[in-house]
């Protein structure tokens, strides 16, 4: 272990930021598996996987906020839903700019908006933050229902996806198998970007602020902007998922803005765990598989979900990612501090 870190230290700065080659390989393998699954899986399974991968963007955003800032959000359906509505507006004939440009601007714009929100709410922490996000999410939900001319109200908007975008035919995006490949590739790209971010000084500063904000201030930093950057990232990623959602479904409605949806994303993030970046993605997959399996078996899906959530939170707070890590260490015979006994 120490020999390896000494080695990476000697290497140039850029390669220090990149994840280990093995990690990159896993990402490529996941994309490969997605391609195979997309071409060979039965339609029901492909559709389930596609749904879960798109929602995984939301879970990843929620999980990132827990992982880096230690903050719990009950309102992240808002950036996801705004991304989806944004895509619908960008694709509407009335849009002032070309859809190819509009679609690319959505996630950065929502990220920027949340950066500003982050600057304003930087003093709010813990429980109050959770309640604030709940209110924020609810107000977006209410607004989507009220402002019918923009959002179509509770009926939602039907989106006419152009036949070609960026010179590619878009039919495939509206099939489960086509979207699966695109969404998984995008998700892996986001994961890679996050892994790099966490290794930059800004990423480490964000973790340091979560651990001990006072000392960070005594080390010569202002803490407001770094906290807002994490909130912005945690919103831009769901926004990207929202864009994919619209391209895939061709339809948006306030359903994806409810706080129940935010809560589901939180459950996925907790279930998956935040000790690894990919935890929430695993949580999203597990959530959809569980719902599919249990939803057919019993009508008490909600109660089972609630019980699972309580048991996981209380007895295994590191979630699937923690369990997987512990298993990996057991197999390789190393022991790490902090594993639940």
């Amino acid at each position, binding site marked *: 272990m*120490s020999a390896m*870190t*000494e080695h990476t230290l000697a290497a140039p700065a850029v390669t220090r930021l990149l994840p280990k080659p093995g990690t990159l390989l896993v990402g490529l393998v996941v994309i490969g598996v997605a391609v195979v699954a997309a071409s060979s899986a039965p339609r029901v399974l492909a559709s389930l996987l596609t749904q879960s991968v798109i929602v995984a963007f939301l879970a990843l955003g929620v999980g990132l906020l827990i992982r880096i800032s230690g903050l719990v959000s009950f309102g992240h359906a808002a950036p996801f839903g705004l991304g989806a509505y944004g895509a619908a507006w960008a694709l509407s004939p009335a849009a002032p700019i070309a859809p190819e440009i509009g679609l690319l601007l959505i996630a950065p714009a929502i990220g920027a908006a949340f950066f500003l929100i982050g600057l304003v709410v930087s003093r709010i922490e813990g429980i109050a933050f959770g309640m604030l996000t709940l209110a924020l999410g609810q107000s977006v939900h209410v607004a989507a229902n009220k402002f019918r001319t923009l959002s179509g109200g509770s009926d939602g908007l039907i989106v006419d996806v152009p036949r070609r975008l960026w010179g590619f035919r878009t039919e495939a995006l509206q099939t489960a198998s086509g979207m699966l490949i695109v969404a998984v590739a995008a998700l892996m790209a986001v994961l890679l970007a996050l892994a790099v971010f966490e290794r930059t*000084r800004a990423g*480490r*500063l964000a*973790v*340091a602020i979560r*651990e*001990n904000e*006072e*000392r*960070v*201030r*005594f*080390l*010569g*930093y*202002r803490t407001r902007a770094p906290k807002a950057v994490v909130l912005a990232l945690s919103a831009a990623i769901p926004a990207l998922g929202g864009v994919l959602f619209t391209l895939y479904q061709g339809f948006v409605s306030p359903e994806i803005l409810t706080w129940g949806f935010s809560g589901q994303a939180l459950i996925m993030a907790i279930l998956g765990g935040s000790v690894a970046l990919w935890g929430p993605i695993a949580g999203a997959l597990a959530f959809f598989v569980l719902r599919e399996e249990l939803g057919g078996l019993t009508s008490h899906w909600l109660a089972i979900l609630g019980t699972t959530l309580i048991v996981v939170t209380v007895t295994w707070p590191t979630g699937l990612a923690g369990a997987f890590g512990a298993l990996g260490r057991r197999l390789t015979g190393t022991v790490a*501090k902090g594993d639940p006994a």
Partner: protein
Amino acid sequence: MSAIFRCEGLGKQYGGVVALQGVDLELEVGKVHGLIGPNGAGKSTFIDVASGRTAGFGRVHFQGRDITAVAPGERRRMGVSRSFQRTSIFPALTIRDQLDLAAHGAGGGDVEALAAMLGLDRVLDRRAEEVSYGQQRLVDLALALVGAPKVLLLDEPAAGLSVAESEVLATHLEEISAQWNVAVLLVEHDMDVVFRICHVLTVLASGRFLVSGPPSEVRTDPAVIRAYFGSTA
């Protein structure tokens, strides 16, 4: 030589309780100024007010400039740094990463050399929560030392250390004050450390200034013996 860091009339009230009242103190480059006194004398309150951690009364000057209203982060970039009595570090970060952050925040500093000097070089790539308590105390100190500040406010750096560890710490502090052109304020309970490395001592009792002077004089001052040594003997 004139004072680089000057505190005038520092005070603090908690509710109706006066924790610190009108204490003056000056720090000079190259000197270690010890601040001692029995429990509850107001030593930690003094360092908290002087460093801008808590708001209180009085003025703080650094290099002739009034920095009373300057935020802690800005003070650190100017060269006024402090350590914490209750270890204030980043458990989940490696020691290298947190020292690197501290160096960047202070505007530069040689992390490797500092770690080598404090004997932290062998644990640089361990997370802070994985190393011993004594090493965590050194990390807290190192976070304050990175970037060679001009003024160091140290809040009981030897708290919780073994006798051997305290001796090593005292040696480091002696070296630093001699070689770095730094003015040090040392709040400390460990009298062996205090009398070994301090050039000047100020004694507080019940939140008030009691006496100040060279350690040899303070040691024999009857008022100090009554207020301090008398109470522990």
